[in-house]
């Protein structure tokens, strides 16, 4: 447990950095231009990928776990999600550059075969949209992994009971299925949000820092690029910490509620 001294110190360091000579001016600066913009971008990217990844992940997971889907689909999907959720960082960024970058395979295919140049129609991989597309690559499988146990917990008997009592499928989802799943779904989306919010390497590999995300800004300061006030990076780190801690505070009670039906 001795290594927790540094870990504890990290937290203190964040606090110290925040005051930077015991002032809150740095933190106040965060709410001004241009710092607040990185937070907005970060939150937007995380929010979009969490919601989209959550929705599609839920659909894919439900499709795979459905009783009438063959069993092997399910084991392939869980194995694959376990691996894909761990893809990330530099290699993932480059895989997408090779696919949708300006000379990427899919870009070239669309241009040469279909005569449609996506780069002339406002698409750019090295932008906010691009980062979102790439993040979805690990957000989706993460959602599948996190939500699968909850979907499994939706017992077949409940649906049978509901339909014996004369409920339509819609009524089943409205009054039984969704209320039971809701805490798990919300919890998973929060997890996805935090996951995207904290990501650094993927965005860095993709854009070399062109997209204004909070982790990228912090990294830019530490790898020696200009930022006139050294304490601002620490203040930004502190801001990130606050956002993530808030997420955790929402996540834990949701998790507890979700555990109620898990037997």
């Amino acid at each position, binding site marked *: 447990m001795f290594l927790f001294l540094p870990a504890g110190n990290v937290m203190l360091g964040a606090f110290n950095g925040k005051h930077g000579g015991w002032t809150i001016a740095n933190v106040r600066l965060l709410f001004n231009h241009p710092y607040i913009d990185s937070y907005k971008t970060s939150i937007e990217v995380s929010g979009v990928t969490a919601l989209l990844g959550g929705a599609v992940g839920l659909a894919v997971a439900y499709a795979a776990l459905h009783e009438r889907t063959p069993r092997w689909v399910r084991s392939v999907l869980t194995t694959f999600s376990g691996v894909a*959720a761990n893809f990330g960082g*530099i290699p993932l960024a480059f895989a997408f550059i090779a696919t949708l970058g300006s000379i990427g395979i899919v870009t070239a295919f669309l241009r040469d075969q279909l005569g449609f140049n996506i780069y002339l129609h406002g698409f750019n991989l090295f932008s906010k949209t691009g980062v979102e597309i790439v993040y979805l690559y690990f957000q989706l499988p993460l959602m599948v992994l996190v939500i699968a146990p909850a979907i499994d917990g939706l017992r077949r008997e409940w649906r049978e009971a509901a*339909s014996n009592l004369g409920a339509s499928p819609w009524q089943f989802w409205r009054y039984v299925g969704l209320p039971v799943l809701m805490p798990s779904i919300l919890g998973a989306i929060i997890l996805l949000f935090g*996951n995207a919010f904290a990501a650094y390497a993927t965005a860095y590999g993709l854009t070399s820092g062109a997209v204004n995300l909070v982790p990228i800004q912090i990294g830019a300061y530490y790898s020696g690029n200009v930022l006139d006030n050294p304490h601002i990076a620490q203040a930004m780190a502190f801001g990130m910490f606050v956002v993530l801690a808030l997420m955790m505070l929402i996540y834990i009670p949701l998790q507890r509620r979700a555990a109620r039906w898990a037997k």
Partner: protein
Amino acid sequence: MRLRRGPTLSAYIWLSLGALYFIVPLFATLLFSLNKNSTGKCCTIASYTWVIHNGDFWHTLKISLLLAVETIVVSLLLFVPTIYWVHLKLPRLRPVIAFLALIPFVVPPIIMVIGLLKVYKGSPDWFYAKPWGFLVASYVILAFPYTFFSLDAGFRSIDVHTLTEASQSLGASWGTTLFKVILPNIRAAALSAAFLTLAVVLGEFTIANLSAFHTFPLFLQYVNETQAYPAAALTLMSFGLTWGAMLSLLLVGRKRGGSGGVFGGAR
């Protein structure tokens, strides 16, 4: 009860969409890596030979692998006895440690590295200026949640008290108990902790980049910026490493019965 027919069709649509989304980038990277440098057309394996004959590739890969091994050894040496002790004597501490294990999720690497660089600034050169010191210390912290949750599950599945009492009533010392009795029983858990740590360390970019140590992911990033086609080959190789570690993990987990939700890693 009515049989519902709808879901199967939409299920297949969703599943194929998901599959496409995941396979297309991998396949495109493969095609990309086979392109000729001069013409940008298919097919040559020049990119792969370039990688294999590149000294920096082997050098950084060796550094990363050594770092991974060192991190695994340090983590296991540190946490196996600790978690054993907690399960045996201090079960009330378990939730506290489980909470501590969540900290690296709330304090991501990008924040952690700032604190670590500050905390260790005053430490001697052999520690601070060498990857074997600073990076390993950081990675042990980074991998702690994975190590903890794997080992914790392992210890929960065996009867620590009975095993310890049996071993001690037969006259074994603490060391013998730990290495000859406990360790073989949690081997699968220790292995899965090791594979997870391996995957984390091999992909870790943030801390290495900000503390300017040249590990494998940094080499990858450097090639990405300079050499398009070899970068694709290298990307696939790096995915291969992750696949390898994760698949071994799943195999180990399956033998143990139940793999559990394993996620995270380097982003």
